[in-house]
Protein backbone atom coordinates (compact mmCIF):
# COMPACT_ATOMS: atom_id res chain seq x y z
CA UNK A 1 0.00 0.00 0.00
CA UNK A 2 2.58 2.46 1.21
CA UNK A 3 4.88 2.31 -1.83
CA UNK A 4 1.95 3.32 -4.08
CA UNK A 5 0.58 5.96 -1.74
CA UNK A 6 3.79 7.95 -1.39
CA UNK A 7 4.26 8.80 -5.11
CA UNK A 8 0.56 9.61 -5.44
CA UNK A 9 0.67 11.89 -2.43
CA UNK A 10 3.79 13.49 -3.87
CA UNK A 11 2.12 14.15 -7.20
CA UNK A 12 -1.02 15.49 -5.54
CA UNK A 13 0.92 17.83 -3.31
CA UNK A 14 3.17 19.17 -6.08
CA UNK A 15 0.49 19.67 -8.70
CA UNK A 16 -2.07 20.80 -6.15
CA UNK A 17 0.38 23.42 -4.97
CA UNK A 18 1.09 24.58 -8.50
CA UNK A 19 -2.61 24.70 -9.28
CA UNK A 20 -3.41 26.73 -6.18
CA UNK A 21 -0.59 29.14 -6.92
CA UNK A 22 -1.64 29.62 -10.53
CA UNK A 23 -5.27 30.02 -9.48
CA UNK A 24 -4.52 32.84 -7.10
CA UNK A 25 -1.92 34.40 -9.37
CA UNK A 26 -4.28 34.51 -12.30
CA UNK A 27 -7.03 35.91 -10.14
CA UNK A 28 -4.67 38.59 -8.91
CA UNK A 29 -3.43 39.65 -12.34
CA UNK A 30 -6.90 39.69 -13.88
CA UNK A 31 -8.28 42.05 -11.25
CA UNK A 32 -5.24 44.27 -11.43
CA UNK A 33 -6.32 47.46 -13.18
CA UNK A 34 -3.93 49.80 -14.93
CA UNK A 35 -3.66 53.23 -13.57
CA UNK A 36 -5.63 55.32 -16.05
CA UNK A 37 -3.52 57.44 -18.40
CA UNK A 38 -5.83 60.43 -18.03
CA UNK A 39 -7.08 60.88 -14.50
CA UNK A 40 -10.65 61.97 -15.18
CA UNK A 41 -12.72 63.75 -17.78
CA UNK A 42 -14.23 66.85 -16.16
CA UNK A 43 -15.79 68.12 -19.40
CA UNK A 44 -17.54 64.82 -20.00
CA UNK A 45 -18.75 64.74 -16.42
CA UNK A 46 -20.10 68.26 -16.76
CA UNK A 47 -21.89 67.40 -19.98
CA UNK A 48 -23.51 64.26 -18.59
CA UNK A 49 -24.50 66.08 -15.43
CA UNK A 50 -26.13 68.80 -17.50
CA UNK A 51 -27.88 66.17 -19.58
CA UNK A 52 -29.26 64.53 -16.46
CA UNK A 53 -30.60 67.76 -14.98
CA UNK A 54 -34.36 67.65 -15.29
CA UNK A 55 -35.58 70.16 -12.76
CA UNK A 56 -35.01 72.59 -14.38
CA UNK A 57 -33.42 71.13 -17.54
CA UNK A 58 -30.38 72.87 -18.98
CA UNK A 59 -30.98 75.05 -22.00
CA UNK A 60 -30.11 73.70 -25.42
CA UNK A 61 -27.32 76.17 -25.99
CA UNK A 62 -25.68 75.24 -22.71
CA UNK A 63 -25.82 71.56 -23.60
CA UNK A 64 -24.37 72.17 -27.03
CA UNK A 65 -21.65 74.32 -25.55
CA UNK A 66 -20.83 71.59 -23.06
CA UNK A 67 -20.61 69.07 -25.88
CA UNK A 68 -18.20 71.31 -27.81
CA UNK A 69 -16.11 71.65 -24.65
CA UNK A 70 -16.06 67.89 -24.34
CA UNK A 71 -14.93 67.58 -27.94
CA UNK A 72 -12.20 70.12 -27.28
CA UNK A 73 -10.92 68.10 -24.35
CA UNK A 74 -10.93 65.00 -26.56
CA UNK A 75 -8.94 66.76 -29.27
CA UNK A 76 -6.39 67.72 -26.65
CA UNK A 77 -6.17 64.13 -25.48
CA UNK A 78 -5.77 62.78 -29.00
CA UNK A 79 -2.88 65.16 -29.56
CA UNK A 80 -1.34 64.23 -26.24
CA UNK A 81 -1.50 60.52 -27.06
CA UNK A 82 -0.06 61.10 -30.51
CA UNK A 83 2.82 62.97 -28.97
CA UNK A 84 3.45 60.53 -26.16
CA UNK A 85 3.11 57.28 -28.03
CA UNK A 86 6.35 57.26 -30.03
CA UNK A 87 8.28 58.46 -27.00
CA UNK A 88 6.84 55.81 -24.74
CA UNK A 89 7.42 53.19 -27.39
CA UNK A 90 11.05 54.14 -27.49
CA UNK A 91 11.33 54.00 -23.72
CA UNK A 92 9.55 50.66 -23.61
CA UNK A 93 11.98 49.15 -26.11
CA UNK A 94 14.90 50.41 -24.08
CA UNK A 95 13.32 48.99 -20.98
CA UNK A 96 13.10 52.32 -19.20
CA UNK A 97 9.39 51.98 -18.47
CA UNK A 98 7.28 48.99 -17.56
CA UNK A 99 4.40 47.38 -19.39
CA UNK A 100 1.91 49.00 -17.06
CA UNK A 101 2.37 52.49 -18.41
CA UNK A 102 2.31 51.29 -21.99
CA UNK A 103 -0.86 49.29 -21.41
CA UNK A 104 -2.57 52.21 -19.77
CA UNK A 105 -1.71 54.32 -22.81
CA UNK A 106 -3.14 51.70 -25.15
CA UNK A 107 -6.33 51.36 -23.15
CA UNK A 108 -6.66 55.15 -22.96
CA UNK A 109 -6.33 55.27 -26.73
CA UNK A 110 -9.07 52.70 -27.17
CA UNK A 111 -11.30 54.47 -24.71
CA UNK A 112 -10.72 57.73 -26.51
CA UNK A 113 -11.87 56.18 -29.75
CA UNK A 114 -15.12 55.11 -28.15
CA UNK A 115 -15.42 58.52 -26.54
CA UNK A 116 -15.07 60.26 -29.90
CA UNK A 117 -17.72 58.05 -31.44
CA UNK A 118 -20.00 58.87 -28.58
CA UNK A 119 -19.45 62.61 -29.02
CA UNK A 120 -20.21 62.31 -32.74
CA UNK A 121 -23.39 60.39 -31.98
CA UNK A 122 -24.44 62.95 -29.38
CA UNK A 123 -23.78 65.80 -31.80
CA UNK A 124 -25.86 64.10 -34.46
CA UNK A 125 -28.68 63.70 -31.98
CA UNK A 126 -28.81 67.50 -31.55
CA UNK A 127 -28.51 68.49 -35.19
CA UNK A 128 -28.22 65.97 -38.00
CA UNK A 129 -24.79 66.29 -39.59
CA UNK A 130 -23.17 68.16 -36.73
CA UNK A 131 -21.08 65.08 -35.96
CA UNK A 132 -18.89 65.69 -39.00
CA UNK A 133 -18.29 69.30 -38.00
CA UNK A 134 -17.87 69.22 -34.25
CA UNK A 135 -14.25 68.11 -34.16
CA UNK A 136 -12.99 70.62 -36.74
CA UNK A 137 -14.93 73.23 -34.76
CA UNK A 138 -13.24 72.12 -31.55
CA UNK A 139 -9.88 72.41 -33.29
CA UNK A 140 -10.48 75.97 -34.43
CA UNK A 141 -11.82 76.91 -31.03
CA UNK A 142 -8.66 75.73 -29.34
CA UNK A 143 -6.45 77.78 -31.65
CA UNK A 144 -8.64 80.85 -31.34
CA UNK A 145 -8.86 80.59 -27.60
CA UNK A 146 -5.10 80.37 -27.31
CA UNK A 147 -4.81 83.65 -29.20
CA UNK A 148 -7.41 85.24 -26.99
CA UNK A 149 -5.45 84.24 -23.92
CA UNK A 150 -2.31 85.78 -25.39
CA UNK A 151 -4.15 89.03 -26.05
CA UNK A 152 -5.71 89.12 -22.59
CA UNK A 153 -2.36 88.47 -20.96
CA UNK A 154 -0.49 91.32 -22.62
CA UNK A 155 -0.80 93.63 -19.62
CA UNK A 156 0.47 90.92 -17.27
CA UNK A 157 3.36 90.19 -19.59
CA UNK A 158 4.09 93.89 -19.64
CA UNK A 159 4.27 94.03 -15.85
CA UNK A 160 6.71 91.13 -15.89
CA UNK A 161 8.86 92.77 -18.54
CA UNK A 162 8.88 95.98 -16.55
CA UNK A 163 10.20 94.12 -13.56
CA UNK A 164 12.76 92.38 -15.69
CA UNK A 165 14.07 95.45 -17.46
CA UNK A 166 13.61 98.05 -14.78
CA UNK A 167 16.38 96.43 -12.79
CA UNK A 168 18.67 96.46 -15.76
CA UNK A 169 17.62 99.84 -17.04
CA UNK A 170 19.21 101.64 -14.12
CA UNK A 171 22.65 100.44 -15.14
CA UNK A 172 22.66 102.30 -18.44
CA UNK A 173 22.12 105.98 -17.95
CA UNK A 174 21.27 106.58 -21.58
CA UNK A 175 17.62 105.53 -21.17
CA UNK A 176 17.07 108.17 -18.56
CA UNK A 177 14.23 109.52 -20.63
CA UNK A 178 12.40 106.22 -20.80
CA UNK A 179 11.32 105.86 -17.16
CA UNK A 180 9.76 109.32 -17.15
CA UNK A 181 7.71 108.64 -20.26
CA UNK A 182 6.89 105.08 -19.24
CA UNK A 183 4.55 105.68 -16.33
CA UNK A 184 2.50 108.13 -18.38
CA UNK A 185 1.99 105.91 -21.38
CA UNK A 186 1.82 102.77 -19.29
CA UNK A 187 -0.86 104.28 -17.13
CA UNK A 188 -2.74 105.26 -20.24
CA UNK A 189 -2.52 102.16 -22.32
CA UNK A 190 -3.65 99.44 -19.93
CA UNK A 191 -6.53 101.53 -18.63
CA UNK A 192 -7.86 102.17 -22.11
CA UNK A 193 -7.25 98.55 -23.04
CA UNK A 194 -8.96 97.40 -19.88
CA UNK A 195 -12.12 99.42 -20.31
CA UNK A 196 -12.32 98.62 -23.97
CA UNK A 197 -11.93 94.94 -23.51
CA UNK A 198 -14.51 94.85 -20.75
CA UNK A 199 -17.05 96.78 -22.75
CA UNK A 200 -16.61 95.34 -26.17
CA UNK A 201 -15.55 91.77 -25.60
CA UNK A 202 -18.98 91.16 -24.18
CA UNK A 203 -20.78 93.79 -26.20
CA UNK A 204 -19.12 92.93 -29.48
CA UNK A 205 -19.13 89.22 -28.97
CA UNK A 206 -22.88 89.13 -28.57
CA UNK A 207 -23.83 91.92 -30.96
CA UNK A 208 -21.69 91.58 -34.07
CA UNK A 209 -21.92 87.82 -34.38
CA UNK A 210 -25.64 88.26 -33.88
CA UNK A 211 -25.91 90.10 -37.15
CA UNK A 212 -23.49 87.79 -38.80
CA UNK A 213 -25.27 84.72 -37.59
CA UNK A 214 -28.43 85.75 -39.31
CA UNK A 215 -26.47 86.28 -42.46
CA UNK A 216 -24.92 82.89 -42.11
CA UNK A 217 -28.21 81.23 -41.51
CA UNK A 218 -29.51 82.73 -44.70
CA UNK A 219 -26.47 81.55 -46.56
CA UNK A 220 -26.93 78.04 -45.41
CA UNK A 221 -30.49 77.74 -46.59
Amino acid sequence: MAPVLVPIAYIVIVFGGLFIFSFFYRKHTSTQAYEPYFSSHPERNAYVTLLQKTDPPASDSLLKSALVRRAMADVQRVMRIREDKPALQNLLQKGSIGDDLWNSLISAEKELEAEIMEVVAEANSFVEGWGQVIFPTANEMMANEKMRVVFDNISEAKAELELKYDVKAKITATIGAAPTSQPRSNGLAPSSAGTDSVVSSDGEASSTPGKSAQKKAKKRR
Partner: protein
Amino acid sequence: MSHSHSHAPGEEHSHSHSQGGPPQSPMMPAPDPALQALIEEDFKPVPLSFSEDRNNAYCLKHRLEKCDACDVDFVGLNRLASLLAANPSLLCPPPANIVTQKLTQVVTATKDEGNTLFKSSLHTAAINRYTVAATIAVSRPPWEANQLMREELSTVISNRSAAFYEAHDYISALADAEAVIQVRRNWSKGHFRKAKALLGMNKLRDAAEAVKLGLSFEPTNTELTSFLAEIEKFEKKTEDAKLEARRQEKTQ
Protein backbone atom coordinates in the same frame (compact mmCIF):
# COMPACT_ATOMS: atom_id res chain seq x y z
CA MET B 1 -4.65 40.88 -19.63
CA SER B 2 -1.78 38.45 -19.14
CA HIS B 3 -1.19 38.50 -22.90
CA SER B 4 0.83 41.67 -22.51
CA HIS B 5 3.74 39.63 -21.21
CA SER B 6 3.97 37.50 -24.30
CA HIS B 7 3.74 40.50 -26.59
CA ALA B 8 6.88 41.88 -28.08
CA PRO B 9 6.87 45.66 -28.14
CA GLY B 10 7.15 45.72 -31.92
CA GLU B 11 4.07 43.57 -32.26
CA GLU B 12 2.04 45.90 -30.14
CA HIS B 13 3.22 48.76 -32.24
CA SER B 14 1.95 47.41 -35.54
CA HIS B 15 -1.28 46.34 -33.95
CA SER B 16 -1.93 49.77 -32.54
CA HIS B 17 -1.11 51.55 -35.77
CA SER B 18 -3.88 49.82 -37.63
CA GLN B 19 -6.32 51.78 -35.50
CA GLY B 20 -5.31 55.04 -37.15
CA GLY B 21 -6.21 58.52 -35.95
CA PRO B 22 -9.65 58.41 -34.37
CA PRO B 23 -11.02 61.74 -35.62
CA GLN B 24 -10.07 61.03 -39.22
CA SER B 25 -12.17 57.93 -39.70
CA PRO B 26 -15.10 59.04 -41.84
CA MET B 27 -17.25 55.95 -41.34
CA MET B 28 -18.31 55.59 -37.75
CA PRO B 29 -18.71 52.01 -36.69
CA ALA B 30 -20.79 51.30 -33.61
CA PRO B 31 -18.78 51.86 -30.45
CA ASP B 32 -17.70 48.89 -28.41
CA PRO B 33 -20.28 48.35 -25.64
CA ALA B 34 -17.59 47.27 -23.20
CA LEU B 35 -15.74 50.53 -23.67
CA GLN B 36 -18.96 52.49 -23.41
CA ALA B 37 -19.68 50.80 -20.12
CA LEU B 38 -16.19 51.79 -19.02
CA ILE B 39 -16.88 55.38 -19.94
CA GLU B 40 -20.16 55.33 -18.07
CA GLU B 41 -18.50 53.84 -15.05
CA ASP B 42 -16.04 56.71 -15.00
CA PHE B 43 -18.83 59.27 -14.67
CA LYS B 44 -18.87 61.45 -11.58
CA PRO B 45 -21.63 64.01 -11.21
CA VAL B 46 -20.47 67.62 -11.05
CA PRO B 47 -22.20 69.82 -8.51
CA LEU B 48 -23.57 72.72 -10.52
CA SER B 49 -26.48 75.09 -10.75
CA PHE B 50 -27.87 77.36 -13.45
CA SER B 51 -28.34 81.05 -13.93
CA GLU B 52 -31.93 82.34 -14.30
CA ASP B 53 -32.07 81.86 -18.06
CA ARG B 54 -30.49 78.39 -17.69
CA ASN B 55 -27.79 79.38 -20.21
CA ASN B 56 -24.93 79.53 -17.77
CA ALA B 57 -23.60 77.04 -15.26
CA TYR B 58 -22.08 77.81 -11.87
CA CYS B 59 -20.67 75.72 -9.07
CA LEU B 60 -23.32 74.68 -6.60
CA LYS B 61 -21.79 75.95 -3.39
CA HIS B 62 -20.35 79.34 -4.27
CA ARG B 63 -22.22 80.30 -7.45
CA LEU B 64 -18.92 80.92 -9.22
CA GLU B 65 -17.96 80.32 -12.83
CA LYS B 66 -14.45 79.35 -11.96
CA CYS B 67 -14.13 77.87 -8.52
CA ASP B 68 -10.92 76.42 -7.17
CA ALA B 69 -12.57 74.95 -4.08
CA CYS B 70 -15.05 72.95 -6.18
CA ASP B 71 -12.41 72.39 -8.89
CA VAL B 72 -14.61 73.53 -11.75
CA ASP B 73 -14.09 75.97 -14.61
CA PHE B 74 -17.16 76.93 -16.59
CA VAL B 75 -15.80 80.15 -18.12
CA GLY B 76 -15.32 78.77 -21.60
CA LEU B 77 -18.50 76.77 -21.39
CA ASN B 78 -20.60 79.75 -20.40
CA ARG B 79 -19.04 82.04 -22.97
CA LEU B 80 -19.91 79.70 -25.81
CA ALA B 81 -23.37 79.01 -24.35
CA SER B 82 -24.16 82.73 -24.19
CA LEU B 83 -22.93 83.15 -27.74
CA LEU B 84 -25.16 80.33 -28.95
CA ALA B 85 -28.10 81.62 -26.92
CA ALA B 86 -27.66 85.08 -28.45
CA ASN B 87 -27.94 83.53 -31.91
CA PRO B 88 -31.01 81.32 -31.81
CA SER B 89 -30.90 80.93 -35.59
CA LEU B 90 -27.61 79.08 -35.17
CA LEU B 91 -28.47 75.46 -34.46
CA CYS B 92 -24.87 74.49 -33.91
CA PRO B 93 -21.44 76.05 -34.48
CA PRO B 94 -21.14 76.14 -38.29
CA PRO B 95 -18.13 74.76 -40.20
CA ALA B 96 -14.94 76.80 -39.92
CA ASN B 97 -14.94 78.00 -43.53
CA ILE B 98 -18.07 80.10 -43.01
CA VAL B 99 -16.63 83.40 -41.79
CA THR B 100 -18.02 86.77 -40.82
CA GLN B 101 -16.90 89.15 -43.56
CA LYS B 102 -18.36 92.11 -41.71
CA LEU B 103 -16.05 91.64 -38.74
CA THR B 104 -13.04 91.70 -41.05
CA GLN B 105 -14.28 94.97 -42.55
CA VAL B 106 -14.76 96.54 -39.14
CA VAL B 107 -11.31 95.46 -37.99
CA THR B 108 -9.66 96.74 -41.16
CA ALA B 109 -11.54 100.05 -40.97
CA THR B 110 -10.55 100.60 -37.33
CA LYS B 111 -6.98 99.63 -38.09
CA ASP B 112 -6.86 102.08 -41.00
CA GLU B 113 -8.15 104.83 -38.73
CA GLY B 114 -5.30 103.99 -36.40
CA ASN B 115 -2.86 104.05 -39.31
CA THR B 116 -3.88 107.57 -40.36
CA LEU B 117 -3.57 108.76 -36.75
CA PHE B 118 -0.17 107.10 -36.60
CA LYS B 119 0.97 108.87 -39.76
CA SER B 120 -0.06 112.24 -38.37
CA SER B 121 1.99 111.28 -35.26
CA LEU B 122 -0.94 111.19 -32.85
CA HIS B 123 0.52 108.09 -31.28
CA THR B 124 -1.66 107.79 -28.19
CA ALA B 125 -4.84 108.14 -30.23
CA ALA B 126 -3.51 105.59 -32.69
CA ILE B 127 -2.77 103.18 -29.84
CA ASN B 128 -6.35 103.50 -28.65
CA ARG B 129 -7.72 102.81 -32.12
CA TYR B 130 -5.48 99.77 -32.47
CA THR B 131 -6.64 98.51 -29.09
CA VAL B 132 -10.25 98.77 -30.21
CA ALA B 133 -9.41 96.97 -33.46
CA ALA B 134 -7.65 94.19 -31.56
CA THR B 135 -10.58 93.76 -29.19
CA ILE B 136 -12.94 93.44 -32.13
CA ALA B 137 -10.62 90.98 -33.86
CA VAL B 138 -10.42 88.82 -30.77
CA SER B 139 -14.21 88.74 -30.37
CA ARG B 140 -14.62 86.85 -33.64
CA PRO B 141 -16.74 83.74 -33.13
CA PRO B 142 -14.29 81.10 -31.94
CA TRP B 143 -15.41 78.37 -34.35
CA GLU B 144 -14.24 80.30 -37.42
CA ALA B 145 -11.00 79.46 -39.19
CA ASN B 146 -8.16 80.48 -36.92
CA GLN B 147 -5.94 81.90 -39.69
CA LEU B 148 -8.23 84.90 -39.97
CA MET B 149 -8.07 85.88 -36.34
CA ARG B 150 -4.35 85.11 -36.32
CA GLU B 151 -3.62 87.46 -39.20
CA GLU B 152 -5.90 90.27 -38.06
CA LEU B 153 -4.79 90.20 -34.46
CA SER B 154 -1.09 89.98 -35.28
CA THR B 155 -1.15 92.90 -37.75
CA VAL B 156 -3.10 95.12 -35.38
CA ILE B 157 -0.89 94.38 -32.39
CA SER B 158 2.22 94.75 -34.51
CA ASN B 159 1.00 98.21 -35.53
CA ARG B 160 0.24 99.03 -31.92
CA SER B 161 3.75 97.99 -31.00
CA ALA B 162 5.09 100.41 -33.62
CA ALA B 163 2.92 103.18 -32.19
CA PHE B 164 4.18 102.44 -28.68
CA TYR B 165 7.70 102.56 -30.00
CA GLU B 166 7.16 105.95 -31.58
CA ALA B 167 5.64 107.15 -28.30
CA HIS B 168 8.91 106.04 -26.61
CA ASP B 169 7.12 103.48 -24.47
CA TYR B 170 9.53 100.68 -25.25
CA ILE B 171 8.32 98.23 -22.63
CA SER B 172 4.79 98.28 -24.01
CA ALA B 173 6.18 97.97 -27.51
CA LEU B 174 8.16 94.95 -26.37
CA ALA B 175 5.14 93.34 -24.70
CA ASP B 176 3.08 93.79 -27.86
CA ALA B 177 5.86 92.47 -30.05
CA GLU B 178 6.13 89.36 -27.90
CA ALA B 179 2.39 88.85 -28.13
CA VAL B 180 2.67 89.09 -31.92
CA ILE B 181 5.40 86.46 -31.88
CA GLN B 182 3.30 84.18 -29.70
CA VAL B 183 0.33 84.50 -32.02
CA ARG B 184 2.29 84.18 -35.26
CA ARG B 185 5.69 82.75 -34.64
CA ASN B 186 6.97 82.53 -38.18
CA TRP B 187 6.08 86.10 -39.13
CA SER B 188 9.20 88.23 -39.47
CA LYS B 189 7.42 91.44 -38.44
CA GLY B 190 6.95 90.38 -34.83
CA HIS B 191 10.65 89.65 -34.43
CA PHE B 192 11.49 92.92 -36.12
CA ARG B 193 9.26 94.87 -33.70
CA LYS B 194 10.75 93.07 -30.72
CA ALA B 195 14.26 93.89 -31.85
CA LYS B 196 13.30 97.52 -32.37
CA ALA B 197 11.79 97.81 -28.91
CA LEU B 198 14.87 96.22 -27.37
CA LEU B 199 17.09 98.56 -29.33
CA GLY B 200 15.02 101.43 -27.97
CA MET B 201 15.94 100.29 -24.49
CA ASN B 202 19.57 99.96 -25.58
CA LYS B 203 19.59 96.17 -25.22
CA LEU B 204 21.78 95.60 -28.23
CA ARG B 205 22.56 91.98 -27.63
CA ASP B 206 18.94 91.00 -27.00
CA ALA B 207 17.89 92.91 -30.09
CA ALA B 208 20.44 91.09 -32.22
CA GLU B 209 19.23 87.79 -30.82
CA ALA B 210 15.60 88.63 -31.61
CA VAL B 211 16.57 89.47 -35.20
CA LYS B 212 18.52 86.25 -35.54
CA LEU B 213 15.55 84.26 -34.31
CA GLY B 214 13.37 86.01 -36.87
CA LEU B 215 15.90 85.25 -39.58
CA SER B 216 15.81 81.56 -38.71
CA PHE B 217 12.18 81.57 -39.82
CA GLU B 218 12.73 83.71 -42.87
CA PRO B 219 16.41 83.75 -43.84
CA THR B 220 15.94 85.96 -46.90
CA ASN B 221 14.00 88.78 -45.25
CA THR B 222 15.74 92.00 -46.27
CA GLU B 223 14.16 94.08 -43.51
CA LEU B 224 15.67 91.85 -40.87
CA THR B 225 19.08 91.43 -42.48
CA SER B 226 19.55 95.16 -42.93
CA PHE B 227 18.37 95.73 -39.38
CA LEU B 228 20.88 93.20 -38.07
CA ALA B 229 23.65 94.98 -39.93
CA GLU B 230 22.46 98.25 -38.42
CA ILE B 231 22.53 96.83 -34.91
CA GLU B 232 26.00 95.45 -35.42
CA LYS B 233 27.20 98.77 -36.71
CA PHE B 234 25.70 100.50 -33.71
CA GLU B 235 27.29 97.99 -31.38
CA LYS B 236 30.68 98.61 -32.92
CA LYS B 237 30.24 102.34 -32.62
CA THR B 238 29.45 102.18 -28.90
CA GLU B 239 32.43 99.91 -28.35
CA ASP B 240 34.67 102.30 -30.23
CA ALA B 241 33.33 105.16 -28.17
CA LYS B 242 34.13 103.25 -24.99
CA LEU B 243 37.65 102.50 -26.18
CA GLU B 244 38.11 106.11 -27.11
CA ALA B 245 36.96 107.25 -23.68
CA ARG B 246 39.35 104.85 -21.99
CA ARG B 247 42.24 106.03 -24.10
CA GLN B 248 41.50 109.61 -23.24
CA GLU B 249 41.41 108.73 -19.55
CA LYS B 250 44.83 107.14 -19.87
CA THR B 251 46.36 110.11 -21.60
CA GLN B 252 45.02 112.40 -18.95
